[in-house]
């Protein structure tokens, strides 16, 4: 009977010319109903450059003349189901990107499911444990940085206040011919975080201190590829963290220890490594203060021991200093953590004088003071036999600092709104950087010390029109022998005109008037205009540009040095 039915239907359907279409229609309707019920978000970014030759600033015209980077993210959620992907394209890559980025293809994709207790992701995922000292995967597109993990992640919340994460995967290293290339090693990791007050909500209802505890364990596997040494193939990094909050006070810290990890970075030594951060803060309305300390030794932790620079990092070691926004301060002497070792301190203070007070004026005034220093740690070698087979080359302790300075930054600023139309910001920065360790320039020797002053004024012409200007001066101290250090003094002027909510135009010029080489006393002029409609932005700029954090027309991003035309389009949906 059943067989007959089947025969009948097969026959019937075969004779029915639209069978495929009907099938497709029904399936299509089903699928589309499913998709249209969920939530789509995402964005598009496309940047095109046409570059000129400009040997004075070391900008070269690429053979293709034009360069274009494009990205589109699409994320979908429906109930507990989620999926997402990113298509990226480098035809060829814009300047400043790693030279192995090329082609068009899928750079990121995942599927997953989550409910109140579990969250599972298969495919690519970004993750951070605690402060990131043991594990952090993230994308910083402006820098061309992406160390995303590809594998599986499970987040488990057995009860309120406790969260356990498990991850297993390989890291993205590169994007070649339209395909993601992973780094060699496998990364396995486990993290637990326990918010005590949330779990014991009733019992601790009146307890004044908020307590969060956490612990991480990360392990990487990479085959021993060395003929001479026996390398550890499994290398662990583990530690704990605590965060306490009492009224207006916060205190938090994390300590991570890394096992023996001979690598290209550390010249294949067999020392253990560590990273520790501690932070104390006090703040109330109108006043904020924080003090932070950091100790790092032999803490470059990569999923491929033979990589260097920014490649295949499993962990994240942030520099302990303020990220500045003014062009000269941000771009000329930036500092990044030395993963082989440093001891750093930072203090930050901000105070708002009350509106209507004698000093505060009608609209209030804000004062900000910030200072940070970084030193080389002491490496004790007494009692160490360098010729023995241990390959342990020194000993060091937490916060064991020497007098050798890597970095110092002392800065303050005053922000005051004088009346309804005029806003004034005055800032001063004193920046010292050790160019022998944290190399920022090929022209400098030893310690570069500089003073920078900035005046910014913003004038509101009417409800929609506004004009803003900046004047910046950088004065580099001379070397003990009387010679000018690095590129000498700089001056920058910026003027920006905005029409809310849709248009802006700005002109900036940086002038290296103090360069010891007269031929290199160059101007860096740049004109930018843009159009914004809701979440669509189109921006066109032409001129010379120094590398660094560049803010214009309301948005900040990192850009490399170039000379030419840049057209960028961004859209969110």
């Amino acid at each position, binding site marked *: 009977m059943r067989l007959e039915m089947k025969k009948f239907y097969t026959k019937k359907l075969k004779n029915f010319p639209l069978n495929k279409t009907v099938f497709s229609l029904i*399936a299509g309707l089903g699928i589309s109903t499913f998709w249209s019920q969920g939530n789509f*978000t995402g964005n598009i970014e496309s940047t095109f450059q046409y570059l000129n030759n400009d040997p004075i600033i070391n900008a070269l015209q690429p053979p293709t003349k034009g360069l274009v980077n494009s990205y589109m993210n699409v994320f979908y959620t429906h109930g507990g189901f989620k999926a997402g992907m990113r298509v990226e394209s480098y035809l060829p890559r814009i300047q400043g990107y790693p030279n192995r980025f090329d082609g068009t293809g899928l750079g990121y994709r995942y599927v997953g499911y989550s409910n109140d207790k579990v969250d599972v992701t298969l495919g690519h995922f970004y993750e951070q444990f605690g402060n990131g000292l043991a594990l952090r995967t993230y994308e910083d597109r402006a820098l061309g940085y992406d160390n995303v993990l590809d594998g599986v992640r499970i987040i488990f919340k057995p009860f309120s206040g406790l969260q356990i994460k498990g991850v297993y995967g390989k890291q993205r290293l590169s994007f070649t011919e339209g395909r993601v290339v992973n780094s060699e090693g496998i990364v396995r990791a486990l993290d637990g975080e326990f918010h005590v007050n949330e779990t014991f909500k009733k019992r601790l209802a009146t307890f004044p201190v908020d307590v969060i505890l956490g612990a991480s364990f990360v392990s990487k596997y990479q085959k021993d590829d060395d003929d001479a040494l026996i390398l550890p193939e499994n290398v662990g990094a583990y530690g704990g963290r605590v965060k306490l909050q009492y009224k207006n006070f916060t205190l938090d810290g994390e300590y991570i220890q890394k096992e023996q990890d001979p690598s290209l970075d550390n010249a294949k030594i067999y020392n253990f490594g560590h990273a520790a951060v501690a932070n104390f803060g006090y703040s109330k309305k109108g006043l904020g203060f924080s003090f932070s300390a950091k100790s790092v030794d032999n803490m470059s932790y990569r999923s491929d021991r033979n990589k260097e620079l920014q490649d295949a990092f499993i962990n994240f070691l942030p520099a302990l200093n303020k990220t500045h926004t003014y062009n000269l301060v941000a771009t000329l002497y930036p500092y990044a953590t030395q993963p082989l070792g440093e001891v750093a301190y930072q203090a930050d203070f901000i105070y708002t004088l009350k509106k209507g007070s004698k000093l505060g004026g009608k609209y209030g005034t804000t004062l900000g003071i910030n200072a940070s220093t970084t030193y080389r740690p002491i490496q004790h070698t007494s009692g160490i036999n360098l010729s023995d087979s241990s390959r342990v080359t020194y000993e060091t302790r937490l916060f064991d600092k020497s007098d050798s300075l890597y970095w110092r930054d002392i800065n303050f600023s005053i922000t005051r709104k004088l009346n309804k139309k005029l806003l004034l910001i005055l800032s001063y920065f004193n920046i010292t950087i050790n160019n022998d360790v944290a190399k920022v320039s090929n022209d400098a020797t030893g310690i570069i010390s500089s003073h920078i002053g900035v005046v910014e004024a913003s004038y509101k012409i009417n409800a929609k029109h506004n004009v803003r200007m900046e004047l910046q001066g950088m004065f580099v101290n001379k070397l003990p022998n009387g010679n000018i250090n690095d590129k000498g003094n700089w001056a920058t002027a910026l003027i920006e005109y905005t029409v809310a*909510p849709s248009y802006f135009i700005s002109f900036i010029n940086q002038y290296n008037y103090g360069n010891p080489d007269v031929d290199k006393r160059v101007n860096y002029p740049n004109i930018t205009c843009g159009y914004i409609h809701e979440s669509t932005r189109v921006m066109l700029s032409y001129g010379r540009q120094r590398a660094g954090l560049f803010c214009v027309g309301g948005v900040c991003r990192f850009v490399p040095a170039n000379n030419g035309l840049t057209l960028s389009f961004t859209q969110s949906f």
Partner: protein
Amino acid sequence: MKRLLTLVLISCTFYVMGQHSAADSASNKKVPSVLLNDINGKSFNTSELGFTGPVVISFWATWCAPCKKELMAIHELYEDWQTETGVNLVAVSIDDEKTKRDVITYANGKGWDYTVLLDPNGDFKRSMGVNNVPHTFLLDKNGNIVYTHNNYAPGDEEILYQEIKKLSVE
């Protein structure tokens, strides 16, 4: 293969049609669910922020001068905005570990009354499709995204307020 292609095409057509009818009735785009902590350690689910009126979500960072100007400008008007429309502002900081510790210092030092959330690894930023900051979203009382703006120029806060007022009239 051909059948698969037809299938994809047809489902796309249906999807686009579905979107159109949805767009006609009102924007049905919601905020995705991401778990974030505020500067006091309290946990928030971004899809259930727990406010009754309209909500402004503003992505910012301590290193972004225009973002800070936007939040400073709104700060001066915030009390009036709240009494007149019942709006709440959620300032989502995308500062990573390098500058995350400065967020509480800055937000309190400025005397802000906003809910300040921390998104140090960009999970919420990514899921909201944010390319760069400042990026501001306005949500109606049902959590639908009704207005967005990816910039700040002085005067933008007034245009945002007009949009908020439209919601409180409805």
